[in-house]
């Protein structure tokens, strides 16, 4: 009887050694086949273009191609949700993680839990948001605009690309702080924000850097940007922080895999993507699309993911969108 038990023990031990060895081996020769990087947006947009340059650069350091697969839908959440539901945590399937992954669980019934279902690899970059008005509008500074809005409740209209997005949240945070009531006119996407503002159909537009060409041509006036520091593209434009509001918004995004990935594999991926980030081609494409680098290593990204999830909960409450 005891002998039998010993035998089983030996077998189990052997199995454990074998499994451990296999795991180590898996990490040692990772990657041995192409890696799929899900980009949950349609091809050709700014985020997609950035990710394609990054994937191209990472190829060099991983010795395997990183294949971008566009899986748009659900405001950028179908891609990560599909990965969580179907992919093995072997490092061969990764996804770009947009803000919606943290936001939607607070407003809808979703299939994923941002706190449990992901292995965070690297945070990459964020967007430059800003507030624009038409160039013939009377407001030269953000303060003038906010003073006018305070004096005329319910009169100022502003456009954002949709309900619940960072642009909407930030404009309402500003309003709350200043005791303003202004009217949100949600558009379908950022391009409509620009044309509605330029056409004078709304008074103010809040959007990522899509307004850059019109600001350059003088058709729109940029009142403030929401980054941590001033942008070298618009050195005269103040940040919200400088203007005395404790608001920095850039909706940073990064790359994650399914939960329970081998830390060794995560490290290999992180190092390759970090090097890929530092290449001039990636820095150039960020600059072309007015994005700001927001690098975080795997551990810091995981912490920041938790914070973003909590922050989005508060945002959903501010906007009255929290699910029942």
């Amino acid at each position, binding site marked *: 009887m005891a002998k039998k038990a010993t035998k089983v023990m030996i077998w189990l031990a052997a199995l454990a050694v074998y499994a451990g060895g296999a795991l180590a081996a898996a990490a040692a020769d990772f990657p041995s086949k192409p890696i799929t990087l899900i980009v949950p947006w*349609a*091809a*050709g*947009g*700014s985020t*997609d*273009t950035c990710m*394609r340059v990054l994937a*191209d650069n990472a190829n060099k350091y991983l010795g395997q191609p990183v294949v971008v*697969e*566009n*899986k*748009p*839908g*659900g*405001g950028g*959440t*179908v891609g990560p*949700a*599909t990965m969580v539901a179907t992919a093995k945590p072997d490092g061969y399937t990764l996804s770009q993680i947009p803000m919606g992954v943290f936001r939607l669980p607070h*407003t*809808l*019934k*979703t*299939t994923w839990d941002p706190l449990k279902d992901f292995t965070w690899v690297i945070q990459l970059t964020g967007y430059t948001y800003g507030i624009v008005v038409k160039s013939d509008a009377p407001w030269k500074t953000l303060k003038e605009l906010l003073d006018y809005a305070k004096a005329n409740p*319910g009169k100022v*209209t502003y456009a954002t690309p*949709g*309900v*619940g997005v960072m642009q909407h949240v930030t404009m309402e945070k500003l309003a709350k702080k200043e005791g303003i009531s202004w*009217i*949100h*006119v*949600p*558009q*379908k996407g950022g*391009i*409509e924000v*620009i*044309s*509605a503002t*330029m*056409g*004078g*159909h*709304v008074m103010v537009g809040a959007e990522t850097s899509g307004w*850059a*060409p*019109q600001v*350059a*041509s003088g*058709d729109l006036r940029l009142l403030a940007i929401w980054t941590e520091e001033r942008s070298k593209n618009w050195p005269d434009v103040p940040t919200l922080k400088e203007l005395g509001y404790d608001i920095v918004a850039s909706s940073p995004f990064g790359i994650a895999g399914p939960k329970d990935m081998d830390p060794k594999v995560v490290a290999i991926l992180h190092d390759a993507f970090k090097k890929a980030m530092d290449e001039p081609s990636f820095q150039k*494409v960020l600059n*072309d*699309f007015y994005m700001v680098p927001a690098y975080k290593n795997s551990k810091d990204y995981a912490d920041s993911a938790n914070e973003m999830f909590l922050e989005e909960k508060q945002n959903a409450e501010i906007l009255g*969108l929290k699910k029942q």
Partner: protein
Amino acid sequence: MDLFNYLGIGFSVALQPENLLYCFIGVFVGTLIGVLPGIGPVGAMSLLLPSTFKATPEAAIIMLAGIYYGAMYGGSTTSILVNIPGEAASVVTCLDGYQMARQGRAGPALGIAAFGSFIAGTIAVLGLMLVAPPLASFALKFGPPEYFTLMVLGLTILIYLAHGSMPKALIMAGFGLVLGLVGLDTMSALPRFTFNQMELLDGVGLVPIVMGVFGVSEVLLNIEQIVRRDILKTNIKGLMPTAQDWKACNGPIARGSILGFFLGVLPGGGAVISSFVSYALEKRLSKHPERFGKGAIEGVAGPEAANNAATGGAFIPLMTLGIPPNVIMAMLLGAFMIHGVTPGPLMMKQHPDLFWGVIVSMYVGNLMLLILNLPLISIWVQILKVPYKVLFPLIILFCLVGVYSVNNTVFDIYIMLIFGIIGYLMKKFDYEGAPMILAFVLGPMMENNLRKSLIMSQGDFSVFFTRPLAAASLIIALLLLLSPLIPWFSKKRAEIPKEED
């Protein structure tokens, strides 16, 4: 004469051998993907975008633009031959194009589509050169109230697409409107009819529905009707449009071109809307509206001209304001920016060679398309001779691949198959697909703009009457609705169902 200077710059850029080659690759690839059902220009452009990173900005944009208008050109081919629109903008072409093919006139239908597209493309390029800047700022004046009333007009015009029972057409339009509601409500971010499916948050895709209702259903229907095949096989008459065809098509092509160009400038689905507005217009103006839906060549020429002119018009807001009016133009915007050029008000001044080079290349490209397509007509017509047991599985295969390739999700394939069955039942019971598709496209835009208008006017409905552009659309829509009360009009309308028996 600045314009001639600019044209000179344009030709010197567009005629460089390298740019000519890129232009050719663009229109060739465009034609191919236009012919394949489901695989649209967006997919092809995104696949080829990285390959242009190393090219000059001129070459890259010329090629990508070529794919776009090449696809519009090719999209009509499958509509005419097998009743499957290669492109949403070609849905209307199915109505009469396929009937022509069944009568053995596939050649003239393809021919008039090619010539009509060429003429329209040329008119659009001329328009682009002459009126781009003033037109762009005019388009900005279109706010939510104007769009809403334009959609009202569009839905009114839908009625003219029906060539059978009016109640059935209205039921289909209603079905299309409801389908358009699926997804996150843009005003409150609440899901509607999504059944907790993440895939449905952005609504049901247009491509799976079109492929299902037109493609899969057509195959299902034909499986049980092998006999009909003989009509196609026996008499494929002359390949080119006759003098009589030309006479019938002059007006439709001219009107379609102008209509398409102006509607193309407006954001959102310009090519789709212009193609069916043109169809309705020609049916209304025709002395024999009863022929429409039964192989009237005007019903092919007008919409084909309109959707091609619209592609030219769509460049105006992008190149002069930096505002892309549709997804494809948004992709081109990305391509410009990768090459360090920001399209917008300054582009004409800062990069005249690029601006005019691209415009002139579109003219050159249209000519290439014509030369490329005319000899192909005889080859396309041969497709009709491919045995159904070979052709049908191929069509299904292309539909499957095409639908999957749009979003890379299997979910869209399920949608397509479900709509294939719905489309089959629709055809069995004589319900038409076109009003449904168009209501599906217009409905969400209409709702969105109505609600935006009312937010901005604080609930005051008078915005729709007090703004001149909005009021004008409403008045035209009202006149169209009242037209049956006027004897002369009602006589024409009455002839249509009568012929149906």
